[in-house]
């Protein structure tokens, strides 16, 4: 039995299985990659949430300064991306919970769920921002 090495075990030449660059992109693989990428983006995004909460706890001047910065165009793009990442990861997670029960694992079901995840996340993000601007009376 070969023993797994945790420290620098890459000395012997092992055969490599084909990796990402070999395959044409498929929707299920793109959704799998996006699930991990959105998860990592949300990790960094907590800094933004923490900043906003601290601004609210600090006082009116600092809160207004932060709100002003968040209303600039680059930050608006970041915030739309943040909400999309959150909703996409949420729907992707629901897909994974379904798979955990052993359902939805047929290839055509996997592809359909992948497209639903993408379409659903875009629709929910649009709904969120429509709601935001509707409450502001800007629609």
């Amino acid at each position, binding site marked *: *039995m070969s023993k797994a090495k*945790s*420290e*620098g*075990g*890459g000395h012997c030449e092992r055969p490599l299985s084909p990796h990402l660059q070999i395959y044409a992109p498929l929707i299920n693989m793109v959704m799998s990659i996006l699930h*991990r990428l959105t*998860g*990592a983006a*949300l*990790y960094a995004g*907590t*800094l933004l*949430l*923490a900043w906003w*909460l*601290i601004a*609210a*706890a600090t006082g*009116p001047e600092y*809160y*207004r300064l932060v709100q002003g910065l968040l209303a600039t165009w680059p930050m608006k793009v970041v915030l739309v991306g943040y*909400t999309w990442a*959150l909703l996409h990861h*949420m729907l992707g*997670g*629901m897909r*994974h*919970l379904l798979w*955990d029960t052993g359902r939805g694992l047929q290839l055509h079901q996997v592809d359909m769920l992948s497209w639903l995840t993408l379409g659903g996340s875009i629709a929910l993000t649009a709904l*969120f921002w429509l*709601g*935001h*601007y509707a*409450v*502001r*009376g800007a629609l």
Partner: protein
Amino acid sequence: MMRTPLKTVRRLGSAKEGSDHFWRQRLTAVANLILIPLLLLLIVGMSSADYSEVRRSLAHPVVAVVLVLTLLASLTHMRLGMQTIIEDYVHRDRHKVPLLMLNTFFAVFIGAICIWAVLKLSFGA
């Protein structure tokens, strides 16, 4: 007597945590499915609020409790997820171990400052 690597996977396995990582990832995922939509509704609801209204909303007991629960569930979830990413891509212990430590420090630090903010909004002057 025949010895096989089975002995390392029996009971809690070689990492001595069994399915704990998997279970907590799913538990916090389901918690987030309830909590994150509430957070998004709260944010949409506060879209036109000025500072004093935002403060009052965030200091409401239900909102404050939901915020703390959301922070605990989502920060635990993202810490577990980032642990998996690190373990997938970083194989040398001298890089992996510090990164796994930093991962926990980051989640705990964000949790501490956010919960401090929620408590100050609830109980602060």
